[in-house]
């Protein structure tokens, strides 16, 4: 709580001018949230053209809350997380690979304009990340304990012994049996679930305020997934961190997230509380996701309702609404507006819920209640 207020004040004094500009997409009052991302764009120049992986993303997150980012492959979810971590900043040999613009405010500091040393100080200490595949995210040549201790020593002036003790404590905290022995194991000696626990231990070694989990359980079996999700939830309560959970699994976000952001073609198409997005979704793509998902909790024998076609290429994002070629309602709004004008995120009534669709509120309410909801 104290951190939050501190963050708010420094944020307000730090860059008042920039923060008071109106932000599209119904962002909450500027400068208040712990993490604020505004109009983030990450573009990669390639031989085939400009890949617009993230194209204008705005959201905010408070401490102690979990934001779920859902979307299909190529929707820009992972690039968003790497952007926040500052991992696109400099490419190999110091060449810049990505064109990044926008603002990322973490606890009152703007990260995109900060210099590399400052970002490096934050990275690993204030912001930590859990990757999908722990086998490739951990170094095979060093013991698990050494890697965790290193992450601790980079940001804290402690000796090796203290760092090792910290590693043992954390391995114990994340539920590794016999942490005194396992601290000297190599990553390949761990099972998939244990490796993911070890990586969580590494991410948490400096008590980060923001934890980004990019598909943390996709490579795991369901019973292990349940353990890991439980662990993340427990640790979040204990440390009060903000968590960004990136996943394609709507079941996982429904269990974890307070807020949801649905991405499509590098843009946010719907954002709101998990409750709102699951029970009163406002965007046809969200309807599509809900309709194409088989449910464990229902004996549903009707056909699934898939979204036709496939996700767009990020080089040639369809003009107008990126979803228009796949949208069954693309012709509902009059004229050619879905194909020519890009819809902006607009607030839905009922508060804390935004979506980017050209259809009128009434039309969407009618379609959802009459056509979609009964079939789910």
């Amino acid at each position, binding site marked *: 709580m104290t951190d939050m207020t501190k963050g708010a004040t420094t944020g307000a004094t730090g860059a008042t001018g920039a923060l008071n500009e109106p932000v599209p997409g119904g962002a909450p009052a500027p400068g208040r949230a712990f993490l604020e991302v505004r109009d983030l764009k990450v573009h990669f120049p390639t031989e085939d053209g400009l890949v617009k992986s993230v194209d204008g993303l705005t959201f905010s997150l408070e401490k102690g809350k979990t934001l779920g980012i859902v979307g299909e492959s190529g929707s820009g979810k992972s690039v968003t997380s790497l952007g926040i971590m500052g991992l696109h900043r400099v490419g190999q040999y110091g060449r810049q690979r990505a064109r990044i613009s926008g603002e990322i405010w973490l606890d009152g500091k703007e990260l995109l304009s900060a210099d590399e040393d400052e970002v490096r100080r934050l990275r690993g200490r204030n912001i930590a990340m859990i990757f999908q595949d722990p086998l490739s995210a951990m170094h095979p040549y060093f013991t698990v304990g050494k890697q965790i201790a290193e992450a601790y020593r980079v940001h804290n002036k402690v000796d090796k012994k203290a760092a090792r003790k910290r590693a043992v404590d954390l391995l114990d905290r994340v539920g590794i049996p016999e942490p005194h022995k396992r601290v000297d194991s190599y990553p390949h000696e761990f099972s998939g679930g244990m490796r993911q626990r070890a990586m969580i231990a590494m991410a948490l070694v400096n008590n980060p305020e923001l934890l980004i989990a990019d598909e943390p359980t996709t490579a795991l*079996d369901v019973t292990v997934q349940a353990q890991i999700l439980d662990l993340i939830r427990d640790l979040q309560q204990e440390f009060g961190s903000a968590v960004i959970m990136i996943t394609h699994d709507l079941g996982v976000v429904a269990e974890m997230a307070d807020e949801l952001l649905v991405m499509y073609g590098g843009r946010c198409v719907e954002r709101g509380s998990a409750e709102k997005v699951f029970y009163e979704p406002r965007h046809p793509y969200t309807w599509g996701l809900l309709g194409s*998902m088989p449910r464990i909790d229902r004996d549903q024998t009707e056909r699934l309702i898939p979204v036709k076609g496939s996700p767009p290429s990020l080089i040639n994002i369809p003009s107008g609404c990126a979803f228009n070629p796949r949208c069954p309602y693309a012709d509902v709004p009059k004229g050619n507006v879905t194909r020519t004008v890009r819809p902006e995120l607009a607030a839905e009534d009922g508060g804390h819920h935004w979506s980017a669709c050209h259809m009128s509120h009434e039309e969407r309410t009618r379609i959802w209640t009459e056509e979609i909801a009964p079939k789910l």
Partner: protein
Amino acid sequence: MTEKPEKPEMDKKAAAAATATATIPAQAVDSPEPLLKVTGLVKHFPIHKGLLRRQAGAVKAVDGIDFDVRRGETLGIVGESGCGKSTMGRLITRLLEPTGGTIEFEGKDITHLGVAGMRPLRRDVQMIFQDPYGSLNPRHTVGTIVSAPFKLQGVTPEGGLKAEVQRLLSLVGLNPEHYNRYPHEFSGGQRQRIGIARALALKPKLVVADEPVSALDVSIQAQVVNLLDDLQQELGLTYVIIAHDLSVIRHVSDRIAVMYLGKIVELADRQSLYGAPMHPYTNALMSAVPVPDPRRRGVKSGRILLKGDVPSPISPPSGCRFHTRCWKATEICKTQDPPLLALKTGHQVACHHPENAPDLVPDDKALPGASDALDTPTP
């Protein structure tokens, strides 16, 4: 058996299931001959060690399983990684040589048929693979890939090869004009459709699909699930679908087998398996699946959270293989492997202490530590 007929052929299937399971044990005498009958199937992969490459042990991937596949049904096989479900799929398609047991296809023993002996059967048994990238030759055009089964079998389809391949492509929802394109020009979902077209080319009787949708995005996954469903109705196919995703399995299967460490622990029709699972492992598996419903998040009182990982199939636990992680384990579980018994019509389970059914060994002494097998769920 079913109140509302969901699919036209569902009634027939339900009726067949009812007759098949009227007598207990489930192997009914008067039921129509199953398409595929697997008895005591075993596959051990030897581990060689040392200078002389002596066999030091074996990975017991599949360790004695029995099941039938009935005509026109979809049998779902579900389990965690390493439970032997994919090995099982490769055994029944005879891509692997079984170590023991028998496989009968339409009453014919195919367990140890050689390459030549299997060739005529390859027309009837086809496989759809998980990886739509690895299972298509990148240097062959789609036309070559889909026409390969005809060439291998020496079959000339009516109306010519090209016309037939184009018909297959449009059957699976691809543009027939893309006949000359290469796999890299297609998306993951489209590639999976190419794999399906190839599997269906020779009008097989049995299609074994190993994780057919797990590599695909949610919206594409639904397209492929619906396609498999349509093709089954249209062509009267029988499916064995192997998957780790319990939601997908629930959607596609008529009957489901749950595997754990090389054994089938429970085999039942969809409704009774998901409605009242009997094996503690099935129960744990189902309660671990995240439910896409934020309002259910608070309701976790009945949730079972297993500790630890699946033991290694090189040295599986004695007796019931699940006893090391089971909260109901007693002395007998450590020593005696429970047989797969039909405790209810159409519901077989291998457990000494089944749930939703009377206990088979009620007075046995609980194993020390069994009660610690569960993590206390967080509120």
